[in-house]
């Protein structure tokens, strides 16, 4: 309609305004949001400065076996006499960067394919969507298991497996976003003033998709942490003796009287993943709020 303001032609301005006006940071000032930020900050610090914090070498078998938590070994020791606390901290160094990597790469690949499918439509779209259908037919863990089993166990192959498993959902989401936006006026205006497919994707469509994607990134980071530790638990991810939360829980499985071996790495996963989800939820709420306001 004629009321469409000119500012619609400058979507980047819209994005910046959204982030500022609706206060993405302000939205984190809920109790859960604060808990989330604190724990995430804690784990990020641990991932960066871990070696300074760890009291002992995470690989050194220098203590008595299966000591219960005590003053020397805060989280106790495992079957071969390694300090559980040091190993829990050291795992963050592997898990967090790898999970970030998985999310970022699969978002980039998935979004690119999805956006292209949505924008080009027709045969390409059909092929990509059927392919994602097929990928979804495999439960994600089983598909990841198949892939890392074919490639051989190990962190590198686990990462490849998780990338293969996770790109289709991004492709789907971005595709549907692009389809909605494709018909919106400022994109058409952009095409009319002579922007090509790719540049209008990047300049017009991408910024509008970005806010929703940001929320998704947070939740999916948690998902990546869980999947990675799942694979490690199954013996297909990080291989012993390297410290990893999943393999540590696996270690503790045989011996229930030494509950601490499995409890603390599990708690580490839980605190990291749930705080990321708390943040994602808080951001989502502020996004919803923003939609409600603009509807009125």
């Amino acid at each position, binding site marked *: 309609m004629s009321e469409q303001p000119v500012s619609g032609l400058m979507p980047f301005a819209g994005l910046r305004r959204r982030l500022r006006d609706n206060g993405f940071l302000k939205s984190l000032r809920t109790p859960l949001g604060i808990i989330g930020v604190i724990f995430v900050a804690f784990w990020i610090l641990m991932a960066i400065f871990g070696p300074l914090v760890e009291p002992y070498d995470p690989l050194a078998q220098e203590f008595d076996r299966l000591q219960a938590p005590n003053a020397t070994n805060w989280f106790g020791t495992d079957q071969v006499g390694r300090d559980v606390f040091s190993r829990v901290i050291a795992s963050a160094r592997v898990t967090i960067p790898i999970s970030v990597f998985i999310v970022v790469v699969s978002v980039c690949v998935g979004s690119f394919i999805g956006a292209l499918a949505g924008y080009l439509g027709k045969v390409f779209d059909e092929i990509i969507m059927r392919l994602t259908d097929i990928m979804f037919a495999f439960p994600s863990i089983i598909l990841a298991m198949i892939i890392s089993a074919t490639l051989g166990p190990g962190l590198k192959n686990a990462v490849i497996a998780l990338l293969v498993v996770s790109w289709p959902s991004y492709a789907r989401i971005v595709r549907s976003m692009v389809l909605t936006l494709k018909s919106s006026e400022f994109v058409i205006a952009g095409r009319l003033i002579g922007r090509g497919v790719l540049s209008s994707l990047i300049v017009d469509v991408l910024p509008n998709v970005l806010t929703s994607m940001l929320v998704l990134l947070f939740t999916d980071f948690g998902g990546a942490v869980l999947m990675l530790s799942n694979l490690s638990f199954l013996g297909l991810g990080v291989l012993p003796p390297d410290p990893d939360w999943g393999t540590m829980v696996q270690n503790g499985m045989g011996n229930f009287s030494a509950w601490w071996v499995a409890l603390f790495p599990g708690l580490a996963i839980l605190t990291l*993943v749930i705080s990321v989800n708390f943040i994602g939820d808080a951001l989502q709420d502020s996004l919803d709020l923003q939609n409600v306001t603009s509807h009125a």
Partner: protein
Amino acid sequence: MTNTAESAEPAAQSPEDGAATARKAGADTAPKRRHPLARYIIRRFFVCVLLVWGVGTITFFLTNVVPADPAAALISDKVAKSNPEIVAAIRHRMGLDQPLRVRYFIYFRNLLHGDLGTSSLTTNPVSRDLARAFPATLELSIIVFVLTVLISMFLGLLAAIHKKTLLDKIIQVFSLFSISMPGFWVAMLAFYIFFFRLHWFSGGGRLDSSLVPPPTVTGMYLVDSLLNDDPVAFTNALSHIMLPALTLTFLNLGSLIRFCRQSAIEAEQSDYTLGARAKGLPSRTVTIRYVFRGASLPILNMTGLTFGALLSGAVLTETVFSWHGIGEYAYNAATSLDLNGIMGSGLLVGVIYIFINFFVDILCGILDPRVRVQ
């Protein structure tokens, strides 16, 4: 003010677009003679067959193309290097010396005959192993599925009705815990607390080792023991299934609760709900008749998709509880690099998932007048 106007305009457009495309999808390929529902089912069935073919192709690709040498993958590197003639023999036996096209054809012919190859771990045909493991997973899945759907619909809709209250917040946090917990860890925690410490339920396995499994009819111990009129086996099997079932239910609840809540809230904020409220209907009538009905289709659709997550979780839960189902089989196969075993389980699970969603689609078609009547 410009902000409001700017974002209101596209936002207001999108539901119309959605409605328009939905209408189009229904009307586009107008049938001449057949009942629209029948046409819909046939179309969905073809999609199903296509998906099964796709799943088979992917497993073929993963077994035959990705590994540098599938034959060498069967034996250890050392043996492979020192004894090339063994590798060659295996390659010949596996048909790997044939061109890829021929192998693809043979692969699918075997699949159609139910031949999934031989497991290098158990040395049995994979299909026989899977047939033995399947009832265990089925038994567990049915219980978990029913529990998950009922509880999550109840909690999700409850949260949606009491949106932004303390109750909603509590349900939300509960579902976040369910989503954020590593499945294997929850399984172990449940095992430790309820079996090891409290002795409320039985631990690993499907039955105490002192008991003889009931004669196989369905392969599901709960059903078979009832058919055999064996209350001891039944209560024991029930006590064994409780922990894995509750664990899996807990793990699957979170995402479905959130989805139910979200669907109900979307239905509640829709124009048709506003329309119903503007007619002066009591809020309970609006909620049950308009909101819940509006949310029913997406929720039904989602329950089908949940089945995939359920089978995924089954891998970890079954492993921890030594539940001899498909999940544990897949785990054993994967960790011992038994390619045929892992492929067979993946294929089976994929096909089950596809067909469950096929039935869910049919159900949706029956429920949705936009599909049912033309």
